[in-house]
């Protein structure tokens, strides 16, 4: 099916792009279109103007900055992130995630920023970015704001971004411990996913802190707070029994949507299995003392 007609702008600066969307009744930023065009073809989303951000210099850069944070331009494709040497070296779990989003065609053009801005609950990147404590840079008419990835997605297909605010950058603190991402899926989108990031002391014997996020099973990625509390300050060798002691209660606290991916009990079960496998992985790749 064809989308409805629209104007098509190709600005070369962030300012022009923001102005282009703002002056339109319901203009939208556009890059890969892998989510947006599907919705437009189904006539679920209408727009009278698409503002193509692919011609804006600098939105596809990846680098390690002076503060030892990793910067990923919002219009980096999944394929680019998957093969980037900086990401491979510092966050291999993110390389691997991006190398497995949907399929090769989606990865060629689909972007990490587009994925986040769509707020699709059954998505890969939001869960891991939340676990990594990523910050998102939004530029609008009134200036720039930086928001934690945890707060960005409000609910299903809903984010805190204003329509004429452009997501320009994803900033990750460089991890100092094992990072894992695991998912279970029937089709191309994750049914349930679990991301975990530990910070480890210099001797690799104790977990200083842990961020654990479960995604896809509810409307947005959610923290497993009881698990995080149990892991804080814990010797690595005591991790498994500590998690098993709180896991059932922690999973019960999650908001779960029953959908075509499965019922609530099933999804909670999957999350628990994925978490325990992630723990084994974390211990073997970097947390083992």
């Amino acid at each position: 099916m064809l989308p409805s007609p629209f104007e098509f702008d190709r600005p070369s600066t962030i300012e022009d792009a923001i102005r282009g969307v703002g002056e339109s009744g319901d203009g939208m930023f556009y890059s890969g279109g892998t989510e947006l065009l599907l919705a437009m073809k189904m006539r679920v989303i209408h727009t009278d103007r698409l503002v193509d951000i692919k011609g804006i210099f600098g939105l596809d850069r990846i680098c390690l900055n002076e503060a030892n944070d990793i910067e990923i331009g919002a219009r980096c494709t999944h394929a680019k992130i998957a093969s980037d040497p900086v990401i491979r070296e510092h966050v291999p779990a993110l390389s691997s995630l991006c190398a497995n989003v949907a399929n090769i065609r989606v990865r060629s053009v689909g972007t990490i920023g587009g994925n986040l801005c769509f707020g699709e609950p059954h998505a890969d990147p939001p869960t891991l970015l939340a676990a990594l404590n990523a910050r998102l840079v939004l530029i609008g008419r009134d200036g720039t704001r930086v928001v934690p990835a945890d707060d960005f997605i409000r609910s299903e297909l809903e984010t805190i971004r204003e329509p004429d605010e452009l997501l320009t950058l994803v900033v990750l603190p460089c991890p100092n411990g094992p990072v894992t991402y695991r998912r279970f899926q029937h089709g191309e989108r994750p049914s349930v996913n679990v991301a975990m990031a530990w910070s480890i002391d210099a001797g690799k014997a104790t977990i200083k802190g842990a961020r654990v996020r479960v995604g896809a099973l509810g409307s947005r990625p959610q923290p497993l707070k009881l698990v995080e509390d149990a892991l804080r300050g814990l010797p690595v060798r005591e991790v498994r029994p500590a998690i098993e002691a709180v896991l059932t209660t922690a999973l019960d606290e999650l908001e779960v949507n029953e959908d075509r991916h499965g019922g609530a009990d099933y999804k909670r079960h999957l999350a628990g299995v994925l978490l325990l496998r992630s723990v084994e992985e974390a211990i073997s790749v970097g947390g083992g003392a």
Partner: protein
Amino acid sequence: MTHMLPISFWLNGQVIALNVPTHTLLIDLIRDKLGLKGTKRSCDMEVCGACTVLLDGEPISSCTTLAVDIDQREITTIEGVTPPDGLSRVQKAFVLHGGLQCGFCTPGFIMAVTALLKATPHPTDEEIRHYLHGNLCRCTGYTKIFEAVKSLASEQASENAI
């Protein structure tokens, strides 16, 4: 109201310049406007791979790509990888190994495999499965397709010309 934009691009090595409505999809431009019917529409949602074409050498779903987005770029379709006097080495391998039955998914598979072998001339079994994961075939059960690609993957580098 219809919005039109001029675009110019290379299609299978030929320069084409025309005006398109902004909401035209690449698959419709290729099939209906330009008459190249080898590219197939199937799922219409980027899942099946039947509409795969190459954009600057990378596989994309033409069903969910705007025609205005190929301005100044290079598109290759199944017609563009088929020599005038026969079949490409990828196509020959599919025939030889029985990698098709009804043939509807085949143009998409040929495009994806062509891109794979260009990027990775000797892919491992795992690389083949990973790359072709997003192309669906409802006839072959994939084994014959896999064997066809594997036969190409193990060919010597000197035989790699299409």
